[in-house]
């Protein structure tokens, strides 16, 4: 059943929680690119310390939502709050991994992390080495990132995102082009981070990898969140909408 326009675009009442600083809220966010709307009024509240998998077809607005959460895309309308602050104010708490690697191809992994560490005021190699080991790579590797395999590059990209120990992880397709073994290792790492109290958002087309790991599956379609389920199996009525 189609939702009336007035209700869809209008401001939905925000559910007030006891501790406003402990959630990530997206309040009626619209993002337009010229005449095209990538997000068409997304309202949602995400609990901290949980693993959210964002699913949907290409062009459903997943990446735009993630970029808006990271503060990279300014919503045309609506607000986003990360633990009660704007994404820009909360930038120290956010780790962002995009589809491209966000790494310099000509430098080694360690050199890359050293540079990005300096942006967060991280001095010394200890933390960088720790993170590289955590993603299953070797800090001694002197090869330039450009010569890494796709899987290694993805893992190094993840290392960059978690370097400053953020409370919120925003990951855009971390498992694409990664072999099953490496993907499972990455999932294990993310699960461990969730267990340590981090909030994890993962966009993926390989939802099966996250079955039993993600606490919640967020289904997006045409710039809206159409469903939120605890398991991959969606109720018949809501799944109809997507078909």
């Amino acid at each position, binding site marked *: 059943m189609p939702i009336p326009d007035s209700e869809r675009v209008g401001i939905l009442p925000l559910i007030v929680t006891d501790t406003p600083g402990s959630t990530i809220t997206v309040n009626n966010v619209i993002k337009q690119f010229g005449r095209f709307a990538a997000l068409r009024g997304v309202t949602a509240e995400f609990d901290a310390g949980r693993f959210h998998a964002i699913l949907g077809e290409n062009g459903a607005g997943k990446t735009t939502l993630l970029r808006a959460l990271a503060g990279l895309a300014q919503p045309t309308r609506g607000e986003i709050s990360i633990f009660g602050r704007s994404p820009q104010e909360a*930038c120290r708490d956010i780790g962002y991994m995009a589809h491209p690697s*966000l790494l310099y191809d000509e*430098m080694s992994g360690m050199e890359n992390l050293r*540079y*990005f560490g300096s*942006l967060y005021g991280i001095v010394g190699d200890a933390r960088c080495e720790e993170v590289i080991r955590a993603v299953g790579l070797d800090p001694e590797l002197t090869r330039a990132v450009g010569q890494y395999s796709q899987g290694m590059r993805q893992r190094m990209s993840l290392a*960059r995102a978690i370097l400053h120990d953020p409370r919120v992880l925003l990951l855009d397709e971390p498992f694409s082009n990664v072999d099953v073994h490496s993907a499972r290792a990455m999932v294990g790492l993310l699960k461990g981070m969730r267990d340590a109290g981090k909030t994890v958002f993962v966009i993926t087309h390989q939802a099966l990898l996250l079955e039993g790991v993600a606490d919640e599956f967020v289904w997006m379609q045409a710039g809206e969140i159409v469903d939120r389920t605890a398991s991959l199996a969606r109720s018949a009525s809501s799944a109809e909408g997507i078909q």
Partner: protein
Amino acid sequence: MNALWAVTLATLVKDIRLEWRSKDALNSMLFFSLLVVVIFVFSFDPLAEESRHIVGGLVWVAFLFAAVVALNQTWARELRNQVLDAYRVSPAPANALFLAKALGNFIFVSVLEALMTPLFVIFYNLRVLGPAWQLIPIAVLGTWALVVNGTFFAAMSLRTRSREIMLPLLLFPISIPAVLGMVAGTTAILTGEDSAHFYIVLLLTYDVVFTTACLTLFGMILHAE
């Protein structure tokens, strides 16, 4: 303030290291500036006396072209793999990135100028009649004038279509007083006919005004989508 300089230094070191590894821009730019000098020599073949009057203009126009080509490559590295986004999500101050890029470009363009100047001197048999030491402040201030706005507008043209051509379109009109200062100042010193003091003051004013403007507005430009 400390964070600003720490990040500036880290970014500058990173850029120099990357440039040194790939040497893309450096090699092509060195050859490009050599070509510019040679083309100019073939196009203008004046007597020694005339050359003093026109070389100021020739040299700076050549520098301007070389600088624009160099400036266009400033942000290319940050666009590959969208590394700029990694900077934008970090808490590092926007001005640190700007200062690092501007300083890097300043070093780069200065190297090009240092290479092109002797060629001009040889090809045009130049002998300075005025106080030659004053060429140094003119060169330094003039180069900074080109580079500081060039870095800013190169960042601005990232957000446009056909960004390579946008940079000169934005940079040249704003640079006219600086170019006039450099050219007229250099000519004044070469010929020894006038004092170049006013032009040095003009360039200094230009540099102070536009460095301030760039630092004030760069944050907005960086965070524009």
